[in-house]
């Protein structure tokens, strides 16, 4: 009797107890999302709205330089979009970023492949080496590239020795090439690490299976390893292309006036002429262009994981 009674109690307790955790459970997912939403709000949404409001401001009549009032002057956009002097830097930004992305992919993919499959017990060491440059300031590293690419530097000397440059003419810094090389160098880890992450997940058994099914060596790579690493390639190219298109440090430090990127124009408008609305408008134009390019790219590459 006592056992049955005890069991009955347990059951009743369970029945009473069960709805409560369920009711609490309904809010748990939202609670868990809260930190992420807050982060997005504070660090993405608020600055974006502020910047957008700024892009609609107009100068205070008779005010000082850099004094603006909040209006909704959409003509700011028309003004910028009809000014041909912005076209070349914008175009240049995308060409430089695209070149740097391709170069970074050509260097980063083999590097990631080597680390993932061939580095053996030194794998972690190589990974640290990929990240190690981050311990030195971005600006300092870029300035160091001036030395490397300078006319008296090792690269030019080597090229002269090979006979690529004759004495007197030729040089790398400052030039478009130097800017692209700088961009490539600075964003290489952003290319390498995502590719490494997706290569590392490729089961070596699949490569063996490809070899067994008449796809040895490079064919096996092309048919199995490469497709399976595409999510990493897409992530790496986006992580390289997007910041590279908006970069201005490399163009400022490794280029000359003929290598101005749109980032430099935004920088100039913000800090030199204090033309905040124009700078904000340019930022939005850049953002829209990048978004368009990225959308087309992701559609074309078509990885289901991203869209």
């Amino acid at each position, binding site marked *: 009797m006592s056992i049955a009674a005890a069991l009955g109690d347990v059951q009743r307790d369970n029945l009473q107890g069960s709805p409560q955790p369920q009711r609490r459970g309904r809010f748990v997912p939202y609670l868990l999302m809260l930190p992420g939403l807050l982060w997005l709000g504070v660090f993405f949404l608020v600055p974006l709205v502020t910047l957008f409001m700024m892009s609609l401001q107009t100068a205070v009549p008779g005010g000082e330089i850099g004094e603006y009032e909040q209006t909704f002057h959409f003509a700011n956009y028309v003004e910028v979009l009809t000014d041909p002097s912005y076209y070349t830097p914008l175009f240049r930004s995308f060409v430089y970023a695209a070149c740097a992305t391709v170069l970074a992919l050509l260097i980063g993919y083999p590097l990631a492949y080597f680390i993932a499959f061939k580095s053996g017990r030194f794998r972690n060491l190589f990974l640290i080496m990929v990240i190690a440059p981050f311990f030195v300031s971005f600006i300092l590293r870029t300035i160091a590239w001036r030395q490397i690419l300078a006319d008296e530097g090792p690269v030019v000397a080597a090229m002269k020795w090979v006979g690529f440059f004759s004495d007197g003419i030729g040089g790398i810094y400052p030039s478009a090439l130097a800017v692209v090389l700088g961009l490539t160098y600075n964003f290489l880890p952003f290319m390498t690490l995502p590719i490494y992450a997706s290569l590392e997940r490729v*089961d070596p*058994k*699949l490569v*063996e*299976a*490809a*070899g*067994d*099914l*008449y*796809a*040895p060596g490079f*064919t096996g790579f092309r*048919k*199995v390893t490469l*497709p*399976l690493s595409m999510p990493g390639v897409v992530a790496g190219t986006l992580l390289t292309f997007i910041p590279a298109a908006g970069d201005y440090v490399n163009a400022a430090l490794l280029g000359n006036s003929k290598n101005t990127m749109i980032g430099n124009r935004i920088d100039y408008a913000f800090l030199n002429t204090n033309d905040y609305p124009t700078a904000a408008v340019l930022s939005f134009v850049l953002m829209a262009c990048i978004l368009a390019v990225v959308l087309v790219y992701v559609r074309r590459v078509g990885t289901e994981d991203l869209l």
Partner: protein
Amino acid sequence: MARSIDVTQADGDLTLTNLTKRFGDFTAVDNLVLTVPQGSFFALLGPSGCGKTTTLRMVAGLEEPTAGSIAIGDADITYSRPYQRPVNTVFQNYALFPHLDIYENVAFGLRRRKDAEVDRKVKEALELVELHHVMRRKPGQLSGGQQQRIALARAIVNRPAVLLLDEPLGALDLKLRRQMQLELKRIQTEVGITFIHVTHDQEEAMTMADTVAVMNAGVIEQMGSPIDLYESPNTAFVANFLGQSNLLPATVTGTDGDDMLLSDADGAFRVPRARVAPGVDVSAGRRVLVGVRPEKIHAELLTMAGDAPSHGNFVEGTVASALFTGVSTQYEVATRGGDVIGVFVQNLRPGAVFDPGTAVRLSWDAGFAFILDGSEDPNAGAHVDDEAAG
């Protein structure tokens, strides 16, 4: 390897000659000699680390032998690249390409070889494994059993001379495994390709294979049909690894016609001379192991038993433990002479289970016992690691 024979078209028996593989100081496969007849279902059975997977990988071309040779028919394939050999593998955990759909997975090998009839062959292979309806799905959307069958179709569609199966059913649950065993056997009979099946599961090997080779420490302990191996094991390892055996140390006392006479602390036994494992010295006075399978032993209540059977082959003892498993009851009986004998009694009548402590008499037909070398460890192979081989 300049040979006139095109290895990719090789056909015939698979022959391994003095095949050896060493990893540093460790000899994984030791001077293996083996012929697998064309069209047979052959199982390499052994505990993990016995060298069976290494042997398979050498046949597949994924591992290069340290010494020896591998041939299919007249063609030497010892050093051929994996894709050059008429050999395909069903990998452990299948290794299906996750980015390709089922159709493309099966078509993979055909497309690489520029086969002219990809579509027909792929559909035939999918028909064979009864999975044509999933051909546009990705491997991740299939159950384990379905993935297993696709892996099989992907290999078979290339019509290799030899198909290698590396622990093919290891990842499936028991029920599915039983079902797939029948399925694999059906498919093998249908396509007539030589199947070489590597497994640590003795039941799997015995139910499917025509010939089973039991491997231990890099060498083949014994090879034969499942019935031969089970009924007439040649070594203690085989006797214990395939099913269970009672191996009782005994001394040869003499002969009586075609029978050997033996004795141990529990009494006298009689075993036909034909049941002596090859190479075992059975001259009078030698120590040997008398083996009896637990299910071959008859147990009866000592109080109900009549006179001791005149043929010998009986021992008396007390039930130490009784394990009811449904189909049978498994007893451990402690004999008066100090041995522990396992006995499986089929549950023919309900409620007829002996309690521990019951005095029983065990007896068996002389022809059901076998004799092994007395120098062997009676427990060899009894408690080997049951996990999948690495």
